[in-house]
């Protein structure tokens, strides 16, 4: 048997494997994600577009949606900055306990989010040992969302930073560029796509959060009630169509965010 045939047979196997893999992936994705999402959208249209519009523009639904989207935007921006800083520190700096910190970053992913709510309430609630009572306020909502979405930017920026070619920086430095210039001109452009996609993930995840905010927000309509809890309220008052309507709005906003950021990245990579 010549080497030639072995290679071609392997390549063939790979191709067949890809088709099978693609089919399996699409089927799985459809069953788990696409069809259920389509069902929610369909459900929201069950009583017509006018009802849909009514459901999402009732004062409390509107207040909940704008709070959710607003808080998520704030959280996304803070994560963008702090997530990048943390990733930077983890990749470029050496300090004792680095491995521990690196592991800790993933903790918000691993915890049931209601546990996050309990922990935050213990530390920043009415009995705060720090004397910092943020519970039942919008600041509390933002805090809970920050906790839950912390890993997104860190974990998308970190690998890119690790693979960044340090020779480029050294070359720039030898040509007389200042540290700030190196960061702005050499490092940042390479990091931006990862930073943005991490931010987009954090933003969409924030909009979906319920477990951690449900305890610390206090669920005050018009003030601290987030969309996910408002949806829960709609279900509890036997209005599944209204619940589906608010869900659909969240879905569309998340989808638009992800698409916009993808476009932005393509545009960025073409320019760079």
């Amino acid at each position, binding site marked *: 048997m010549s080497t030639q045939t072995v290679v071609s047979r392997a390549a063939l196997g790979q191709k067949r494997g890809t088709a099978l893999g693609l089919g399996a992936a699409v089927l799985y994705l459809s069953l788990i994600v696409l069809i259920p999402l389509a069902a929610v959208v369909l459900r929201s249209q069950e009583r017509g577009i006018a009802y849909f519009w009514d459901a999402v523009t*009732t004062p409390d639904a509107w207040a909940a949606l704008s709070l959710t989207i607003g808080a998520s935007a704030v959280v996304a921006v803070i994560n963008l900055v702090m997530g990048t800083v943390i990733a930077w520190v983890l990749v470029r700096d050496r300090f004792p306990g680095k491995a521990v910190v690196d592991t800790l970053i993933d903790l918000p992913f691993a915890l049931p989010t209601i546990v996050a709510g309990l922990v935050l309430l213990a530390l920043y*609630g009415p009995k705060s040992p720090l004397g910092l009572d943020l519970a039942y306020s919008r600041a509390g909502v933002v805090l809970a969302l920050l906790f839950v979405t912390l890993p997104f930017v860190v974990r998308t920026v970190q690998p890119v930073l690790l693979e960044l070619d340090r020779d480029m920086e050294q070359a720039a430095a030898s040509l007389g560029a200042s540290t700030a210039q190196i960061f702005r001109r050499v490092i940042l452009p390479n990091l931006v796509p990862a930073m943005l996609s991490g931010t987009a993930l954090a933003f969409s995840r924030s909009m979906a959060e319920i477990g951690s905010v*449900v305890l610390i927000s206090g669920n*005050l*309509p*018009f*003030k601290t009630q987030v969309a996910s809890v408002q949806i829960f309220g*709609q279900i*509890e008052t036997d209005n599944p169509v209204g619940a589906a309507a608010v869900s659909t709005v969240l879905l569309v906003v998340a989808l638009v965010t992800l698409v916009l950021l993808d476009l932005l990245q393509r545009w960025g990579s073409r320019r760079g």
Partner: protein
Amino acid sequence: MRRLLATTTVMASIATLAACGGGGSDSASGGQVQLSLVAYSTPQAAYEKIIQAFQATPEGKNVTFTKSFGASGDQSRAVEAGLKADIVAFSLEPDMTRLVKKGLVAEDWSTGENKGMITDSVVVIATRKGNPKNLKTWDDLTKPGVEVITPNPFTSGGARWNVMAGYGAKSNKGADKQAGVDYLNALFANVPVQDDSARKSLQTFTSGKGDAILAYENEAIFAQQNNQQLDYTVPDSTILIENPVAVTKNSAHPNEAKAFLKFLYTTEAQKIFADNGYRPVVKGVQGVSFPAPPALFTIADLGGWPKVTTEFFDPKGSVMADVERKLGVSIEK
């Protein structure tokens, strides 16, 4: 050789298991059945004990149970969506009505001697240990600087009892509607947090927020039995909470399910409920006493759940929707 031995062992155990299984199904012809109980969460401890007591009786000898406990509304919707249930127990009537509409519970479920209700309770005012702010009446709760904890009535079905208790007490059982509505506005202005469920409200209260919490008497008793630091007062005028129970129409074992339902009304079962803080619905339960509020009223006095639900809890235009909206507007200012 060793493999052969292992195979033989496995075969032998399978054979033994099969034999046991066979023995089990033999006795099934003697009446071994499994009932599914779907209930709201608070009476869980009581039901565990009652089931044991039932299984000690001739009717319950061969009956085993699968049990599911959770938020009343969630449980009701789960059964509506197809969760198998032989007996359903909820914290308030609309959760049962939902199943009647769906044809899962007989129309006449509430026509018996006890109108389908298995336990009673009342809404009470619970405070911190020693009641430092001396909060004992409905009016005390609207004083400036007092923080009252109660869940959001739009996310918590149970919270509706609290709303109707305050409303009924201050409107003279619904006679003076305006006085009742004014009271709700004043009360909710003192509510700093509206958790999504009664359980989370208790969590909020025990974590240090608020001076008083509107709670069910049975929950307050349960909390005290579990060494939580709180006191409670039964107001002179408050609402009688009634918890419905029923056998489903599609139960696979209606006779056993009905026998269990009947057992729930025995003094033995009612005593267990009472020990867990619930007021018994049958007379003659020994060794328990609950204070009798002089001006006790029921949801029927206020027009019944269907009327009250539309009038008070419709998210679009109802008394509570207005209360919340005014609250939101005044906070936003």
